[in-house]
């Protein structure tokens, strides 16, 4: 479509590129600022000299974070919830999507209705809260991985994927050869669905990594709380409390502020680290997931 037609076109192309580059820069700038501030010298922070690139170099804030017991506990908890939660999610979603994708399954339409109803109706926050309390899951690790174990939306797109990539004929043929549905599912369906499993894993894992509200409602024990709650305390509700001791070493008020701020920035980067590392390579899977869902809608 881009055919050089004249001076007007070239001006448009150039200004378009400049404009989009500017937009991209604005989008990414907050992260650059946080990274730069987190590794700059304390002096530069006190003098408020950092706008773009880091000034000086100093990893004290990162050391402080990795020496902070509460920080490490929260980080470990988040990893636990993400790994265990995603594992449960993917197993349940794929194993439920397969029967629902077989047209020959006798109670398929009834089960689809059963599942679809939960998309439009729910009990809401309080009945769920009462249930969780009655089940004795309040303040346990399990609540974070059980609640939301199957996402209906993901279940539906996985079903659509199975329908289109594993035709009925394949499973029927395998059955004639003596395979039962278990064997078909584990030996044929799952190996053929790597792309879908990747998409599911990513979508669920990001959800767990960023989960905040569930933890806010169901985890009051600080030993069980994930990064999201720790970061809220650090960044939003009660800033300095998290590392008062480290700050107290300096009698200069500005230095205390600077140490605190740098600690915040380092914590932000450590929290985002997995997503920042994997994201550029996995972006196409995320987009794929979005597109499968959109086609279904």
């Amino acid at each position, binding site marked *: 479509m881009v055919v050089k037609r004249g001076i007007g076109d070239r001006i448009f192309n150039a200004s378009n590129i400049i404009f989009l580059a500017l937009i991209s820069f604005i989008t990414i700038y907050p992260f650059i600022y946080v990274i730069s501030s987190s590794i700059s010298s304390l002096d530069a922070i006190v003098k408020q000299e950092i706008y773009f690139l880091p000034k000086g170099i100093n990893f004290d804030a990162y050391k402080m974070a990795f020496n902070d017991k509460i920080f490490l506990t929260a980080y470990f908890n988040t990893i636990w919830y993400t790994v265990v939660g995603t594992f449960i999610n993917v197993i349940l979603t794929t194993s439920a999507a397969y029967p629902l994708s077989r047209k020959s*399954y006798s109670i398929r339409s009834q089960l689809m209705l059963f599942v679809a109803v939960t998309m439009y109706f729910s009990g809401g926050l309080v009945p769920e809260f009462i249930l969780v309390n009655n089940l004795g899951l309040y303040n346990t690790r399990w609540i974070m991985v059980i609640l939301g174990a199957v996402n209906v939306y993901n279940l539906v797109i996985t079903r659509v994927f199975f329908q289109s990539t594993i035709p009925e004929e394949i499973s029927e043929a395998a059955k004639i050869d003596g395979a039962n549905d278990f064997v078909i599912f584990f030996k044929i369906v799952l190996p053929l669905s790597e792309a879908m499993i990747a998409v599911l894993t990513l979508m669920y894992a990001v959800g767990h990594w960023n989960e905040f509200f569930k933890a806010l409602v169901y985890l009051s024990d600080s030993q069980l709380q994930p990064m999201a709650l720790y970061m809220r305390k650090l960044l939003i509700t009660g800033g300095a409390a998290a590392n008062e001791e480290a700050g107290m070493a300096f009698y200069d008020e500005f230095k205390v502020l600077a140490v605190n701020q740098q600690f915040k920035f380092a914590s932000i980067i450590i929290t985002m680290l997995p997503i920042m590392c994997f994201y550029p390579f996995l972006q196409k899977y995320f987009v794929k997931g979005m597109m499968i869902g959109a086609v279904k809608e």
Partner: protein
Amino acid sequence: MKVAEKKAWIGRRYIIQSKFIQKFRNEKFLHILILPTIIYFIVFSYIPMYGILVAFKDFSFAKGIAGSPWVGFEYFEAFFRSMYFMRLIKNTMLISFYSILWGMPFPILFALLLNEVGNRQFKRVAQTVSYFPHFVSVVIVVGMMVTFLSPVDGIINILALKLGFEPINFMQESKWFRTLYIGTGIWQDFGWNSILYLAALTSIPMEQYESSKVDGANRFQQAIHITIPGIMPTIIILFILSIGKVMNVGSTKVLLMYSPAIYDVADVISTYVYRKSILGGEMSFGTAVSLFNMAINFILVFITNKISKKVSEVSLW
């Protein structure tokens, strides 16, 4: 004759029935595969639906849902009479309304401009960068917002001070809340939301552009007469679907951003439910408010889904 027919019919029905039973038995592995998910939905979706009864009872944990006394619509009436009722509805709708108004044009514009870029590498980098904030957690987004806007050492106020402005305590001022909420929302999702428009753009047939070029259309005219009409169905459907969610503002981001000082504009139905029930212990009242909200949401989603189906049928053919 008649008896024979009847017998044959009964026989056929019996065969169908027994075939179904046999088939059902043969499918035991399929049942086993789906069983855990069914149990999950029964426990965590259907049982809480029964729990909605709490809205019509004076619930206490000691008595349980079944044992708590009925109070009818008492809590609904209390909510409708309270000063919060109008304020919550107004806040919820205004946040949604302004989010749609300001939020919709950005992804469309971004997709249109990106579509005009010939350099594939540049395009890919711009996409990668613009999608990224979508994956950052709300806690981090709000945390960065609070840190950057801090009246003491936030970069925004440092710059403002250097330019001769008074520092502003953004997070504590009602008039800034919606701007910050919606502005950061746009920043976080304009790239991600452009994906659907970019997909719609690629489905516009190339011939249309080629024949319009023969007719002497320039790129601006092509954009007006081919590109925008080409993505119009997508725009309309996404718009209608977002209208269905106007009364459904999630609690997380507001909870992280608000404080008593700005409740007058920031408090929405979902945060009010959380505050009343989980923090305040008024389980029945909270359920009543949330049920009222869910009913409205359901009606809106139902209506807008119907409309969008009709529109997409019309726009497809």
